Structures are given as structure tokens and as C-alpha cells.
């Protein structure tokens, strides 16, 4: 077997770890239980958020992963599963299960996160604010990099999993999400403030993003490959230091183009190759994910208990 094939075999073994397979099986079971689907109006960002909320009663199941090449350590993949539920039209709640697998090291479950997004303004405006609050219970081995804050640095992840997994933290993360729609474009700006509840200082970060469907009007017929089903965009995100030192110096930053493909049956795929913009960043953060939207999930669950 060639070295390249062996690398990919190792990669696949990591990708289809017991956690990944269990998560996929659970997602498949949910889908089988409640088959009808719908299409959301997603911007498909990996890091940034827009003001578009999950439709009330809809459940979006997403399986995503993050592959990174490390300068000082082994490459890794960090798959996560997220369950996004539209509690109301102005409140979306989301639960994440994180995992990671570092090549030539080990595979770990690294914790969970529970996030909530609230739209305080009931009408559309030029700029639409959303308030975001998240509780994180993850170990230092968490490599999903759903956000970059403070002085997060690629070298933080160079240590072996056995060392990183020893310490875990409870963190509260807040975001002010500002988002606008203009002529088919969505433009979003996120300001992040994260606090480790263990007497660490506040850490700050940002995420900027823009996306647009490749065709704005819909065609009359159902189609899989027409341009209306594709969304293209880009994200830029990074750290802004801490409360003690609000700075760009010593922080890491990324630029990541994005492409998403929405199928009419409620499934969508997205991919985003992120490029590190300075020495503190990973060279490459390749993210991709598959999403399945189940409309009316809440109603179907309630009807089971009547």
C-alpha cells in the first residue's frame, strides 16, 4: 500500500470513529422517525451567525468536521454533531457534542455545548441584532474551533491528547450578532466575549461573513444541480485578545471561502477551506458538514405523548 493510501486509510478510520458512527446512527434514527422535511433559509456559515433563526418546531441535525494541519503537532480531525431546534420564531436553541481524533495519538469525546440565540427585535431592520449565550463544558483537547477568541494559538493544540484532556473548563460565551440582508446577500458581523468560569479573564473575538445564493429567483421545476441550490460566501474570524490586553498582536486569524449545496429533500452539504493568516494560525482548517432539516419535529414529538 502506498504511503498516501495509508494516510487516507488512517484518516477514514479516524473519521468513522465509534463516536461518529454512533452520532450518525442516532441522526439516522431521528430522520427515520420523522420523515417529512423542509428547507431552511440558511447562510451555511461554520463560525459566524446571521440573524436567521431555525423555523419554529424544526430540528436541524448536522454532522460536521474540522480537519487541520498542525505546524508543531500531528494533524487532527474534530467532528461534532449539532442539534438545532427552533423553540420559537425568535429563539433558537442548539446542542453540540464535540469530539476529536489526532493522528498517531487518540480519539476523544471532548465535551458538550448548549447555545441559545434570541432575536430581541420582532421586525426586520437594516441591521438585525441577535443575542447569543452559550454554555460550554469542554476539555482543552476540544479542537472543533467553532470560534477563535483571546490569544488562541495553533501551538495550544500541539501537546498530546493525554495532556490536553486533563483540564476541562466551564465557559460562558456571549455574542452580539449583527446581520443584514441586501439584494440576496447576507452580511454578518459577530462580536464574541468568552469567559472561563474558573477566574480567567474575558476573551474577545470576531467573525465576519457574507454569502449569497448563486441564483436569486427559483426555477419552477424541482432540480438538484441548478444554481439556486448553491450558496457561496466567505468568512473571516480571529481573536482580539483579552480584557487585560485588547489587541490583534499575538492572536490568530483565518479567511475561509464557503460553498453550500442545498438539496430539495432537506439535505445540504457545505465545505469551507480556511487559510491561516499569520504564524499563530493553523495553515489549513478544512471544514465540511452535512445537514438534515426535519420540519414540525416538535409537534411530532408532542403528538407521541398525547
Amino acid at each position, binding site marked *: 500500500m502506498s504511503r498516501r493510501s495509508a494516510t487516507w486509510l488512517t484518516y477514514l478510520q479516524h473519521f468513522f470513529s465509534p463516536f461518529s458512527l454512533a452520532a450518525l446512527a442516532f441522526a439516522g434514527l431521528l430522520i427515520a422517525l420523522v420523515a417529512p422535511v423542509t428547507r431552511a433559509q440558511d447562510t451555511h456559515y461554520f463560525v459566524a451567525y446571521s440573524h436567521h433563526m431555525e423555523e419554529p418546531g424544526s430540528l436541524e441535525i448536522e454532522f460536521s468536521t474540522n480537519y487541520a494541519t498542525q505546524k508543531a503537532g500531528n494533524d487532527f480531525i474534530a467532528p461534532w454533531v449539532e442539534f438545532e431546534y427552533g423553540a*420559537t*420564531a*425568535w429563539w433558537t436553541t442548539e446542542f453540540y457534542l464535540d469530539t476529536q481524533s489526532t493522528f498517531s495519538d487518540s480519539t476523544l469525546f471532548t465535551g458538550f455545548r448548549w447555545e441559545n440565540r434570541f432575536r430581541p427585535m420582532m421586525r426586520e431592520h437594516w441591521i438585525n441584532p441577535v443575542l447569543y449565550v452559550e454554555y460550554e463544558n469542554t476539555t482543552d483537547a476540544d479542537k472543533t474551533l467553532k470560534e477563535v477568541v483571546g490569544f488562541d494559538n495553533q501551538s495550544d493544540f500541539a501537546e498530546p491528547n493525554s495532556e490536553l484532556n486533563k483540564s476541562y473548563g466551564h465557559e460562558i460565551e456571549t455574542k452580539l450578532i449583527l446581520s443584514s440582508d441586501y439584494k440576496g446577500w447576507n452580511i454578518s458581523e459577530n462580536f464574541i466575549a468568552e469567559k472561563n*468560569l*474558573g477566574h480567567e479573564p474575558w476573551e474577545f473575538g470576531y467573525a465576519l461573513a457574507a454569502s449569497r445564493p448563486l441564483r436569486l429567483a*427559483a426555477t419552477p421545476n424541482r432540480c438538484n444541480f441548478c444554481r439556486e441550490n448553491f450558496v457561496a460566501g466567505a468568512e473571516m474570524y480571529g481573536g482580539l485578545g483579552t480584557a487585560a490586553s485588547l489587541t490583534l498582536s499575538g492572536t490568530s486569524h483565518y479567511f475561509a471561502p464557503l460553498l453550500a449545496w442545498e438539496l430539495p429533500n432537506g439535505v445540504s452539504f457545505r465545505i469551507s477551506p480556511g487559510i491561516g493568516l499569520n504564524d499563530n494560525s493553523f495553515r489549513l482548517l478544512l471544514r465540511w458538514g452535512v445537514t438534515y432539516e426535519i420540519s414540525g419535529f416538535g409537534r411530532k414529538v408532542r403528538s407521541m405523548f398525547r
Partner: protein
Amino acid sequence: MSRPRGLIWAILIAASLAFAAAGAARDKEELTDSRGVLLSIAKAPAKERDWKNPYEGDAEAMLAGKKLYLQHCAECHGKNARGMRNAVNLRTPGVQNATSGELAWFLRNGNLWRGMPSWSGLPDQRRWQIVTYLKTLR
């Protein structure tokens, strides 16, 4: 480090209360204006009310609108648009007496407090296509 259980419980209780409040808000009945248009739709500002549908009478746009309706709206309003549970019947005068501009404005803004999501994430063109379809349901 000890787990902040108090904080977790406080968050769970707050979430339950918010769920209950949101459910109560959705159960209120909707009123209409003098034209018989649902007040939540009739709230559209005068400028938006007079917007013209660029696809009015366009058969292709109507078909595209039907496709979009089935993808985004039918789960709550029903495939035949006669309404289900708390979602209104879209064939009633309360909706059909509204101008195209009012419907486009309403689709963009939704009525978040009563459970109707904002569809501002859809491009303008797609919202107008849905309006074109809705206007054929009279």
C-alpha cells in the same frame, strides 16, 4: 473545579418559562382591519403596501412560488394552504384581501411573537414568487 450546578439549573428554569410564555403568545386570536385583512399583515407601512409584484401574472413565477411554498410554508399552513393548528388559512379574505406588497412585507418580517418566522433569508425574488402563488389561491 466544581460544577456550577446552580447556574445550569437557573438556565434550565429560565428556558422552561420562556417556552411557556412563547406558547401562550401563539394561542391568542388574530383580529382584522376594516378591509378584513389580518392586523398582523395590515401593519405593513404605506410604502411597502403599495409595492408592485414584479412577477404579477407570470405563470413561471407562480409555479416557482408553488415549489417554494411546498418547501417552506406547507408544513404549517398545509399543502392546500387551508391552515393547520395555529397557522392561518391562506385562502381566507384575511390574507387574500391584502395587497401583494403587504404579503411581501409580511413574509419578510414574519410575526415572530406569534410563531410566524421571518423569511428575510430568502432573496426578494423568491418571496415575490411565493406571493404570486398565494394570490392564485383566492
